[in-house]
């Protein structure tokens, strides 16, 4: 058990140091994220009443696409000098490698979040008031869900020449269901929807904030466990 934590911590720290020194991913992510936010702001100007919805969508789209950059990089870095073999030769379960890489991707997205969330709030003129903790929680749940699937399949597509686009289509199709409650939760926090929405009518959503957060938690739990268990299969030669 102790060797599990030692290996996990070692891979995590190594990846963080390598990223801090190489500085390849985070700057690109930030630029891409800001571009996505600005483009969506510009094109939604005629319908400025829909700012909360477009703002929420912009935030999740930025998370998805910038997250893909981070996830692709997390295993691309291991392709140089056969470093992936080095990890697989370690006397630890391959799932440990997955969990460490997952933690790194979550942390990178958290750093990205610190930059992009204020940009979205300013550009779309949104506010969460006193519900900062709820916003952070929702973003973290979305972050973990996005990273869980992306980390697994990043290892799977590494040898492909079109690995970026392959990873994108896999991650986007699997994460489609997560985006609905995620957007609902953000809309509640931006004040565009009440805490609980029921019945039909002109509103685009039903459900409650608690249900949305609960769904995201369940989604994360299912996929983190499934991806962790299946990682050994994916990295086997």
């Amino acid at each position, binding site marked *: 058990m102790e060797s599990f934590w030692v290996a996990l911590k070692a891979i995590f720290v190594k990846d963080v140091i*390598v990223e801090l020194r*190489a500085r390849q991913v985070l700057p690109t992510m930030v630029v891409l994220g800001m571009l996505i936010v600005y483009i969506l702001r510009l094109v939604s100007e005629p319908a400025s009443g829909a700012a909360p919805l477009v703002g929420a969508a912009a935030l999740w789209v930025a998370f998805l696409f910038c997250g893909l950059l981070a996830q692709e990089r997390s295993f691309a870095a291991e392709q140089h*000098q056969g470093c992936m073999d080095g990890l697989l*030769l370690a*006397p*630890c379960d391959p799932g440990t490698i997955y969990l460490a890489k997952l933690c790194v991707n979550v942390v990178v997205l958290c750093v990205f979040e610190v930059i992009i969330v204020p940009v979205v709030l300013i550009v779309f003129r949104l506010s969460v008031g006193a519900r900062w903790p709820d916003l952070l929680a929702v973003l973290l749940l979305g972050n973990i869900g996005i990273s869980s699937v992306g980390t697994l399949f990043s290892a799977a597509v590494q040898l492909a020449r079109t690995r970026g686009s392959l990873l994108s289509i896999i991650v986007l199709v699997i994460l489609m269901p997560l985006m609905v409650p995620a957007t609902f939760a953000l809309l509640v926090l931006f004040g565009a929807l009440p805490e609980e929405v029921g019945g039909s009518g002109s509103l685009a959503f039903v459900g409650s904030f608690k249900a949305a957060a609960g769904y995201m938690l369940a989604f994360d739990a299912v996929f983190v466990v499934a991806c962790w268990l299946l990682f050994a299969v994916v990295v086997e*030669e």
Partner: protein
Amino acid sequence: MTLCVRSVSKRFAARRVLNNIDLDLDGGQALCLCGANGAGKSTLLRVIAGLLRPDNGSLALDGYDVRKDCERYKRRLGVISHASMIYAELTVRENLAFAAALHGMRKPAARVEELLNDTALAAFRHDRAGILSRGLLQRLAIARALLHRPGLLLADEPFTGLDNEATALLVSLFRRFVDDGGAIVIVTHDVRLGLECCQRVAVLDAGRFRLDAMKTDIDCDRFAQDYLSYARNDSWNRSGSH
């Protein structure tokens, strides 16, 4: 230390790369594995390293099966491959510290220093691995492989790109490793170097062992000149070769 390989076969698409390979290796033995390109040497090494799953057969190191006791198996194994498995952004010392942590070594500082001195890398300990020459990188790879005191060392073309000084250092490291009770399998095209390091030679030809004998039982000069035709022409009884 005992390595036990039984009836290992491996196919890639329709091609049989390894064909019912048996191999026994004890501590204190160094085996030089030769063969033409595509004979299956690197594949065999990857299978023994646990990086490649064979289609059938079994492998055990000190009685620990590669699949069932994977962790214990890998603890006893050190690998030097074509690629250095070194991170360019980390320093020499950081690379070794990382490898030590992966192997669960709690206080590796002393062992890291010892290996930096043994591989003459002490002066480069704070340099990023990305700026090292091929020869220095190979030494770092060797230090990485020996860090956790494995019982079996697998070396795939370890002498490629090394100058005379580095080669001599590597040969002495291998000899010391074997003298300390470790076992080595070296894959090399430089047969003379292989014969220098090892007491046992084997030739892999089309997925099978064509020859497996002690150095003292063969004509080393003829073997070094053309090992393939030597192995094919002379009839070698594998059961009597250990």
